[in-house]
């Protein structure tokens, strides 16, 4: 439905797309021209989110500010590696913030595959049938994420993104503990249904 505006004030897909392009353009300007005005615009948008993210995951104010600085410095240095085909700028910044706070707050390393590793199985190695399955599985997961009930999505968010315990979720959302567990189970089985069939 082109031109339809979301009445809840949430950005329409078109508006979201424009936002993504806007931030993508800023990252590009940083990568190509070391553009400080573009960097400042990215900072004003993302720094408060990084701060909130770190505070909610248990950082004190000064550690959270250091993490903001770390993450934004990484944005400055790695702007050239941002690939708009892979992720939005918001998702890219989130993954940097996630990795830095695992390192800093949890004192753990973040294991990740190395895209340049010759031992990595490239997607091109899949048979046409497997590739078709992957495309379908990806579409199904996207559908499943979009059709999650709001209260299930909220439990998923608190559990995985904010790392709250079931008890904390129950208390914060004023919902019985059993309901929290049920919603989490329903959310995961909703997502799992989109997984390609197992033998």
């Amino acid at each position, binding site marked *: 439905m082109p031109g339809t505006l979301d009445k809840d004030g949430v950005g329409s897909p078109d508006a979201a797309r424009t936002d993504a392009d806007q931030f993508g353009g800023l990252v590009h300007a940083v990568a190509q021209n070391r553009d400080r005005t573009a960097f400042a615009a990215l900072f004003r948008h993302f720094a*408060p989110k990084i701060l909130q993210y770190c505070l909610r995951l248990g950082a004190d104010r000064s550690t959270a500010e250091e993490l903001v600085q770390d993450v934004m*410095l990484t944005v400055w240095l790695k702007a050239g590696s941002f690939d708009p085909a892979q992720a939005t700028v918001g998702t890219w910044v989130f993954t940097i913030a996630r990795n830095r706070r695992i390192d800093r707050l949890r004192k753990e390393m973040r294991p990740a*595959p190395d895209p*340049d590793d*010759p031992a990595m199985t490239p997607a091109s190695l899949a048979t046409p049938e497997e590739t078709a399955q992957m495309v379908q599985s*990806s579409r199904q997961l996207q559908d499943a994420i979009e059709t999650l009930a709001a209260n299930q999505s909220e439990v998923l968010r608190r559990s995985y993104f904010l790392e709250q315990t079931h008890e904390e979720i129950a208390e914060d959302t004023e919902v019985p503990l059993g309901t929290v567990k049920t919603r989490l189970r329903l959310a995961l089985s909703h997502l799992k249904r989109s997984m390609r069939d197992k*033998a």
Partner: protein
Amino acid sequence: MTVPFHHPDDQLLIGYASGQERAGKSLLVATHLAYCPDCRQRVASYEALCGNWFEELPCAAHDGLDAVLDRMDSLLTAALAPPEPAPVEPPAAERTCGRLVPEPLRSWLPDAIDTATDDGSWREISKGVWLSGWERTLSGTTIRLLRMASDAPVPAHRHTADELLLVLRGAFRDEYGSYGLGDVAHYVAGTDHYARGASEEDCICLFLLDGDLIFLDEDGNPV
């Protein structure tokens, strides 16, 4: 079949994407991702979901971050452009997928994983089944290698928490199916399962255990 068939469940994938999952299981998930383009895509979808949640975080109007931006000014000047990434060595055919364990696991493992079983780096736990002397503990998860000769059964055991296997060489089977290169088997606490080697060469798996492993005698009593 060229890509894995048995995948980590969504709990592990979303936990890996969000950063909630701890280092031990994340190492297994990340290594599976190197084998599995399908799960790489799935994790990317979950990262995008987390990216949306990140964008929706409520922010205070006066967050006091201007001072941080000011402080960064000199850092930005000092920070040089990152060096060009080193050119990647073109992979020789025999070095690629299959024989070489992919990162991130490769850096953790001993240089060769298929050493002779009598060279002192393997401990035989029953005929044709070995545990590696190599062992690491990461955020409470014990990590070893499990090796099964063709058709050799893993002896009956009980585990008190999650047990996870990732196939690095050969294949094994249990009552749920058969597992080849890059496949993941996930057994929750208390489940009975009977794995045995199912390939001509020895099957070698990354073996993760959250709790204790207790081998049982013929009557099902702890040894």
